[in-house]
């Protein structure tokens, strides 16, 4: 990651990012550009550097913020009409932590309204285009953030992942995207979707950048009582040296810096610009056992994605890792369980948007009931309405036992199945989505077809386990392919470290 120092000013980094953002304006990545605010902050950091004061680990690093994170800089719209005029007086804890290290938000990125969607086409402001093919979707719901990183506008971007909203757009745009363990990063100041599965995470170009961001953002927050004590930086089980088997560690000759084969991204610049932190190395984790899920190896998954998975499995074998097959029959039902549990939580979380206290309020309502009804009908997108109504259906009397309770029981089976899998292997490698980026408009009018996009990503959210999208080359049409590396709860650091083993050219 390029950070500001005495040679490269924060203002230069920020101006470059803003110029690129404007150059790529036709992709519709940003809902808001933070021009004046970003430049002012950059000047503050440059002044500190000039005075020789200590600056943070992200000094002057421009980043893009998914537009469902609250801060007073720009309105937080969640790409929804009902929040179009809303500007938050409070700042999300995750933003405060990044900015305390000197990161500078240059813009707020587009998403499916309230993060309901897998393509960013459900945005009130129109879709974001794929970084590799403008006729295709960016993925979603964090589409704007993924494309901002893929087009090299920013070094990193924030996202939220309730069922795949970081991992799928990362795979559609050829970058890294992490959904951490449930409870790892504070959600205070982030627009709630489904409280039992929502996670904050990041998009980056390298595993080392992901590690740095995680080490900054993780930890308990008194403002979010669903945060875990900081295991990412402290937990002994995270210490790579504590693996019982010493042969897993490769202490020799690992001072070689990684290479990243990306156009316009020169790793030599990175090592020059980095002026703090330890020298980055390739993976220290050796002799792992990796599980491939048998149940995902069928015609419902694109053949080139399955080939990419097999190629990565071969690569791991050649590096001394063992590949095993896993039977995980309950995962077949994860999507149905997800589309019961999450709409139920959505219906509850989105009941707060009533036009009374903040956001859009419909005009000319004769009484309070009409105000609620008109505001919500005019303010929500069609997909928001579908999810709220599905949620109220599965929770309503007569259907609760058959749908919601049954899904909650299915969730237990899914949690147990992951526990069993991780008693047999260290990590699971699987596809993220059944296909690479699809055409704009292809699925937008068929909600179930859009939901099927999430069939391999949602089970992680139901189980609370972390997953990292890793780039896995391109298909014949030139579209990026991605795979997800899944680990047990709290294995985030090892997961990121191990992802280096999946890079083709470790030299």
């Amino acid at each position, binding site marked *: 990651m390029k950070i500001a120092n005495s040679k490269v000013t924060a203002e230069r980094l920020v101006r470059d990012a803003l110029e690129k953002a404007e150059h790529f304006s036709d992709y519709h990545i940003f809902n808001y550009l933070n021009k004046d605010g970003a430049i002012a902050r950059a000047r503050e950091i440059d002044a500190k550097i000039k005075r020789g004061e200590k600056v943070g680990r992200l000094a002057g690093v421009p980043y893009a913020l998914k537009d469902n994170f609250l801060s007073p800089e720009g309105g937080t719209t969640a790409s929804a009409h009902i929040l179009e005029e809303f500007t938050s007086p409070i700042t999300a804890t995750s933003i405060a932590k990044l900015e305390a290290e000197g990161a500078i938000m240059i813009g707020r990125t587009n998403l499916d309204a309230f993060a309901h969607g897998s393509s960013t086409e459900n945005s009130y402001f129109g879709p974001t285009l794929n970084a590799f093919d403008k006729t295709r979707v960016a993925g979603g719901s964090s589409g704007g953030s993924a494309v901002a990183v893929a087009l090299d506008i920013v070094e990193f971007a924030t996202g939220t992942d309730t069922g795949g909203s970081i991992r799928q757009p990362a795979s559609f745009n050829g970058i890294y995207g992490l959904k951490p363990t449930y409870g790892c990063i504070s959600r205070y100041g982030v627009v709630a979707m489904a409280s*039992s599965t929502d996670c904050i995470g990041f998009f980056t170009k390298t595993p080392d950048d992901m590690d740095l961001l995680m080490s900054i953002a993780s930890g308990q927050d*008194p403002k979010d009582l669903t945060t875990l004590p900081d295991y990412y930086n402290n937990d002994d089980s995270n210490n790579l040296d504590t693996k019982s088997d010493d042969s897993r560690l490769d202490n020799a000759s690992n001072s070689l810096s990684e290479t990243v084969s990306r156009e316009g991204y020169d790793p030599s610049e990175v090592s020059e610009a980095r002026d703090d932190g330890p020298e980055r190395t390739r993976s220290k984790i050796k002799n792992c056992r990796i599980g491939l899920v048998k149940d995902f190896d069928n015609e419902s998954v694109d053949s080139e994605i399955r080939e990419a998975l097999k190629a990565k499995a071969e690569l791991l074998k050649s590096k001394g890792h063992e590949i095993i097959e896993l039977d995980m029959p309950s995962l077949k*039902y994860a999507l149905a369980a997800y*589309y019961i549990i999450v709409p139920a939580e959505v219906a509850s979380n989105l009941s707060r948007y009533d036009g009374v*206290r903040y956001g859009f309020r419909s005009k000319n309502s004769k009484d309070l009931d009409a105000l609620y009804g008109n505001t919500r009908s005019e303010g929500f997108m069609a997909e928001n309405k579908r999810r709220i*109504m599905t949620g109220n259906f599965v929770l309503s009397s007569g259907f609760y036992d058959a749908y919601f309770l049954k899904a909650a*029981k299915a969730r*237990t089976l899914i949690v147990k199945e992951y526990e069993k899998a991780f008693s047999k292997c260290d990590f699971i490698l699987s596809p993220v989505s059944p296909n690479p980026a699809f055409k704009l408009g292809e699925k937008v009018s068929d909600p179930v077809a859009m939901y099927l996009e999430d069939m391999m990503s949602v089970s992680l959210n139901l189980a609370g386990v972390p997953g990292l999208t890793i780039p896995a080359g391109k298909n014949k049409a030139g579209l990026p392919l991605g795979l997800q590396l899944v680990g047990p709860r709290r294995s985030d650091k090892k997961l990121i470290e191990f992802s280096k083993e999946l890079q083709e050219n470790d030299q």
Partner: protein
Amino acid sequence: MKIKREDILHLSELSNFTLSESEIESLSGNLSDIIKYISQLDELDVEGIPPTYQVFEMENVWRDDEILEQDASRDELLALTKESRDNQIKVPKVL
């Protein structure tokens, strides 16, 4: 199961929506498709399995019962509403 017009009207009431005729029609189709899909859970035997509602490892996280400093002032919060008077939010008549 097929979602009928009266089901949509009931759900829109639960959801506090005022739907147009064309929305009622499209949502009937959409919700029928969605409910058909999620009904495949019927194939799964969950007899005797306890439900899972959350995957957070901790329970009953308490804080001390004291007033903490707030991130937003009353004035800042009231400024977010469309209409207010005497520190109260103004809405159309309730009854």
